[in-house]
């Protein structure tokens, strides 16, 4: 059984020298999805697959599926609404959680 | 241990003389210190610089107060600053001057030995400039006795490059021409 990953080093001896972090993108262990009050929903019948939503997402949490449609990773989506606001074919709606 | 104090004006190269003397002594296996007065004086202002020379490692790092030898690079300083201040009674005052030792003794009130050499004339002739630091270094070597003039040659060459030979010639002339006399 693998040990559960600690949130903090428990002791000073466990601190990396200089608090260096050697695991790139390890911030992903922190799920910002809980910050969200509303979430974006895509209507793929209106989506023209332009990718504006992907491009303008400050979280970088919108990705393209195999068919070229887009979706947000709700583990990280903070619900800012930029994708909804910028989607000019109006394929995205913000809905209450 | 011998202590030397140099008097000059900012820009006249007293610090260079101090360095060359220290290097020559060290070259011979002796121990030496050379240091400027650590003041904010600029070009033209009266400045002092110091040497210590010994056969043993030198530990004292305070100022020089009772020098054995005082060298005055610029005659105009005699009377302007008390060049004989603290000079040991059996010490020697070396002055760049065409005047007589008596005249120097009268102004400085120093009763010990006075050595004079017309360093300015030598510098004009040998270097073409009235900068007397190396010239007076030659005079000092003669008066000091315990460090050879030749020990400075390599350091003068390193320091002055193309004009090293002129400086060496000026040093040698002052070495030969300086006269030590007891006035009193």
């Amino acid at each position, binding site marked *: 059984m693998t040990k559960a990953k600690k949130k903090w080093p428990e002791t000073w001896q466990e601190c990396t020298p200089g608090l260096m*972090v050697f695991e790139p993108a390890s911030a992903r262990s*922190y799920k*910002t999805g809980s910050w969200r009050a509303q979430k974006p929903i895509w209507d793929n019948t209106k989506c023209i697959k*332009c990718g504006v939503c992907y491009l303008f997402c400050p979280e*970088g949490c919108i990705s393209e599926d195999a068919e070229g449609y887009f979706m947000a990773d709700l583990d990280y989506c903070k619900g800012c609404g*930029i994708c*909804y606001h910028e989607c000019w074919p109006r394929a995205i709606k913000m809905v209450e959680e | 241990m011998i202590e030397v104090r140099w008097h000059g004006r900012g820009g006249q190269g007293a610090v260079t003389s101090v360095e060359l003397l220290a290097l020559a002594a060290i070259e011979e296996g002796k121990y030496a210190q050379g240091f400027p007065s650590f003041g904010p004086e600029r070009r033209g202002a009266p400045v002092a610089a110091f040497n210590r020379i010994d056969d043993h490692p030198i530990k004292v790092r305070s100022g020089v107060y009772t020098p054995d030898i005082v060298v005055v690079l610029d005659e105009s300083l005699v009377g302007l600053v008390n060049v004989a201040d603290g000079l040991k009674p059996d010490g020697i005052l070396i002055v760049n001057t065409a005047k007589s030792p008596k005249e120097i003794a009268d102004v400085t009130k120093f009763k010990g030995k006075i050595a004079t050499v017309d360093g300015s004339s030598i510098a004009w002739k040998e270097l073409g400039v009235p900068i007397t630091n190396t010239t007076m270094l030659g005079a000092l070597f003669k008066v000091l006795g315990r460090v050879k003039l030749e020990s400075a040659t390599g350091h003068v060459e390193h320091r002055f490059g193309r004009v090293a030979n002129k400086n060496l010639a000026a040093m040698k002339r002052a070495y030969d021409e300086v006269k030590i006399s007891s006035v009193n």
Partner: protein
Amino acid sequence: MKGIVENFDLYAPKLVDKEEYFSSGHRACQGCGEALAIRLMCKALGKDTVITNATGCMEVISTLYPTTAWKLPWVHVAFPNSAAVGAGVSSALKVLRRKGKIADRDVKTVSIGGDGGSVDIGFQAISGAMERGHDMIYICFDNEAYMNTGIQRSGGTPYGASTTTAPAGAASVGNKTWKKNVPAIMVAHNVPYVATACHSYPFDFMNKVKKARKVKGPAYIHCLAVCPTGWRAGSDTCIKLGRLAVETGIFPLYEVENGKYNITIDMPKKLRPVDDYLKLQGRFRHLSPDERKTFQELATLEYNKILNNVKCSKSWSDLKG
């Protein structure tokens, strides 16, 4: 139509590096323009990059020990010295490569900071680093106040904005002066590539970053980064506000290559009135009609100065005697 998503090619994702060098899980506010700008900057830079970061929002929200949002090598030392740290990194990479101690390939040093850390407290370090000609890019992410410490006025704050240290009140309009023109100061440093940018024009911004990267020597980009929190606007208006800043002439997008100014995003013949921009933001809500007029005059004057530079400036290569 450039008004919407600049010269927008459909299928945007195909045109950019898919790698997320600035990962999800960072703690920036909802709708943070600066986080978006950083994300886009990284995509334009690619992996052979070292980032030095001034203290500020982006540093605090990205590297809470023991985690990091960065997939690029990254170093933060203090608030005012990102450019100096970058100068050191750049010099080290240069000499270590020359000595064969690291891989023999180009790695670009990119120093970043907010407006406070760049145009105010970090300004001396930027001036020094740019003037000495290090091979590095400095990118200022300008959200027009000290947002990390709570919306205090900086040299990047525009006229009339109410901040916590230049608050609007019965006897005050808020901030009394226009933004410091740091790009012009960088041009005066003989920096061969200087540009303004905004995340709302992502391809323009990324192209400028790529251009800056190609410069052998210093380059400076001043990127407007909308802060919905500090500007007191809806988080979903982030992109729109950036666009309005450009279309009103408040923040024109241009580049200066070897002294020659060029507008990179076509401006409308008739600029949109600044009111379109001001009315969406709480920081300007208090402005009276007269003050809005003053704002308009200042914005127009600054914009005309840029246009004049575009018209009159020549490339330094044309000025050689």
